[in-house]
């Protein structure tokens, strides 16, 4: 997906990989699950020391990226995380930072705390029983003498119970706004929600007259729709890149299995019925890499196509990946549906991402709606 371009990026990639191998392997994921822990805060802080949370943040705010293309570097981390479906709040922290850096005034200290890994935050965008509609909010923000009063309920907030603050999307007198609300604010109640994933946890966050200062607002009403869209794009690019990493790992182990496993005196890899399935999956994998790379490049460049291309990538990757991994389960036979085999760790994460932040079906409709806006890309000679 992300073609590693320069020595700094190669060093960053190898440092990230070494850290993940040592401290976020599949057995770590199993261990966290057994002790009912999503991730350890000190572990996340060590990951942040490697620069994971600084990539979207400009240098003047204490961030920086190795290649100068923070979105591409972030996608590289997400892809590597996919190889071992590693834990941690990379997605929620990055999505919040993507919003904060667009309108950093008054939030500099919190940005710094997120970059250092000292604090964790998450995007409170979903509302109970509602689909992913980032530009709509039933939660309200009512202006008060000193700031705002927030009322309403958000849910499916990733790492909500482990977050120091949430970035809440709310309706303020008919306008879409976002507010950074510390989770220890009086009137805020956080209830954990389980997920199908081994380690990813979500939360329901209820706001009952939670009072915040005026400085809690992130961006003006005019800025907010574009900021929310930017956050949506970052969230989707992270999902796609991580799924590409997952597919890379699952296809490698499945192809190796086809070579190693023998039936009727010959390797499974020699059966044409199975070879053809492996060939299809190779094609779908390369197409997944291609469309994810297209989305990453468009978001990095803030291209006018980015809105459409993230939906194209999510629609394609999230439609194909679960089908491919289930087929890998089938190719493994009975071992593929055991707790002991690692396939389900990957399948869980992919099933989660398929649904979160818009299903393929939702994104098909989004692409349909946008298809008049920008011309389809010309095939390059």
């Amino acid at each position, binding site marked *: 997906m992300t073609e590693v371009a320069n020595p700094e990026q190669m060093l960053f990639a190898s440092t990230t990989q070494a850290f993940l191998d040592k401290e976020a392997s599949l057995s770590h994921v199993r261990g966290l699950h057994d002790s009912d822990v999503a991730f350890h805060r000190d572990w996340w802080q060590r990951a942040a020391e490697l620069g994971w949370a600084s990539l979207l943040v400009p240098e003047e705010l204490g961030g920086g990226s190795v290649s100068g293309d923070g979105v591409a570097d972030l996608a590289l981390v997400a892809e590597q995380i996919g190889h071992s479906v590693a834990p941690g709040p990379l997605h929620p922290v990055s999505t919040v930072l993507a919003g904060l850096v667009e309108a950093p005034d008054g939030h500099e200290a919190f940005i710094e705390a997120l970059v250092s890994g000292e604090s964790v935050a998450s995007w409170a965008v979903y509302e109970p029983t509602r689909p992913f509609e980032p530009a709509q909010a039933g939660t309200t923000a009512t202006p008060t003498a000193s700031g705002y009063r927030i009322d309403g309920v958000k849910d499916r907030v990733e790492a909500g119970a482990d977050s120091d603050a949430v970035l809440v999307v709310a309706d303020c007198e008919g306008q879409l706004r976002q507010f950074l609300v510390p989770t220890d604010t009086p009137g805020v109640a956080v209830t954990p929600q389980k997920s199908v994933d081994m380690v990813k946890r979500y939360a329901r966050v209820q706001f009952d007259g939670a009072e915040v200062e005026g400085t809690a607002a992130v961006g003006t009403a005019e800025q907010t729709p574009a900021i929310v869209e930017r956050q949506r794009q970052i969230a989707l690019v992270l999902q796609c890149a991580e799924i590409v990493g997952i597919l890379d790992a699952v296809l490698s182990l499945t192809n190796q299995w086809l070579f190693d496993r023998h039936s009727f005196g010959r390797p499974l890899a020699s059966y044409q019925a199975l070879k053809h399935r492996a*060939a299809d999956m190779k094609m779908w994998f390369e197409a997944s890499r291609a469309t994810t790379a297209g989305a990453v490049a468009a978001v990095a460049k803030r291209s006018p196509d980015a809105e459409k291309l993230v939906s194209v990538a999510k629609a394609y990757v999230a439609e194909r990946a679960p089908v491919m991994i289930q087929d890998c389960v089938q190719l493994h036979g009975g071992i593929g549906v055991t707790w002991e085999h690692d396939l389900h760790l990957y399948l869980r994460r992919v099933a989660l991402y398929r649904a979160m932040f818009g299903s393929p079906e939702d994104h*098909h*409709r989004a692409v349909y709606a946008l298809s008049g806006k920008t011309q389809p890309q010309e095939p390059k000679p």
Partner: protein
Amino acid sequence: MTDTAISTSTTESVDEFAARARAWLAENMPRVDPDNPPFSVRAEQESWDRAKQLQKRLHEGGFAGICFPREYGGLGLDYAYQKAFDAECRTYEMPLILNVPTFTICAATLLDMGSEEQKRERISAAIRGDEILVQLLSEPSGGSDLAGVITRADHKDGKWIVNGAKTWSTSAFAGDYGLLLARTDWTVPKHEGLTMFLVPLDAPGITMRRIKEVNGNEEFCEEFFDGLELADDAVVGEVNKGWEVASRQLFHERRAVGGGSEFASGTGAENAQEMPPDHVGLAEATGQADDPRIQDLAGRALVRRLVKEQLIEHVARSIPNGSLPPNAGTLIRLFHAETTELEVDTALAIAGTAGVVDEGGDLSGLMEIGVRYLSRQTGSLGGGTSEMARNVISERMMGFPREPAADRGVPFNQVKRGRQ
């Protein structure tokens, strides 16, 4: 206009070349809307007459055969010049049907394997717009097993005598010369007894017939050879080394299909039938634009089409940097087939009854979708089947074990064959 190509200096930069092309195109070539290309159906002789005429004009202007060597009638320039020309000529009518197979496959293969005389005569005639080259490969007895051809060429009294039949020859009715693969030695394994011949298609002993497809098109031909006589100079490459030549054809064909041949001039769809179905327009025409189910279906097809373009770019980028092997073009071939099937199926689903019954009024014309559906498999059959593509991907890209072949290493005259 003069009848000789303008002498092109290699000191001309790509930008200067593009600027000169821009000015010349505006003066000399008909303008078209690339989103609505003109009628140019391969089954019609008039399309070929028109293509030859346009090619002659390009040649007279000094913009033909950009990447072919100068000694064979080309300009001897590198791919960057061709790409610059492609960008300039997008809004002009180009002889696109000459790209495949004349330039990108046949001329490219002659350049690799042909004799000096074959290169001088045939390549330059094609570049001048005088001749069309075609391939005579598949046979009625088998499609995918190309090396198993049974058309025979026997050497007698200093001549080759050809007997047999070929089929699925693209546009052969319009061709002047064809590359014909024939068996010249039956006592050796199948790949070792083949020879490629360059055949004048108006020679006595050739009978040609059009194949009528389910959609009524008659683009493909079958040919019967009954004592066709060829001289020794008709051999391309060496006697019994025909498989090497055929392999070059297949190599050039894969590159051409992926849009990666420097010998193609001009890009874009050859005609409106080649354009993907307009799913949004179809949803609107049938009053279903607000139906979420239809939006999902149509959006899915739109997504696939964009992913196909992204895959083409990805493969084109990954082969030179080594992250994908050279035969990764097969991924594009297979993805194209899969996408075409989805696009056509989706169009038929949205069209509903109007795709199969001419309902008249605003819906008249939608039955074309139903007719197109009837031949949707052509993308998965032509140029090697999708099943062969999956073998190439798994065996040659991924290193999976090759299929067992009962004819491997066996003299061809001992290989079991089906009913003739």
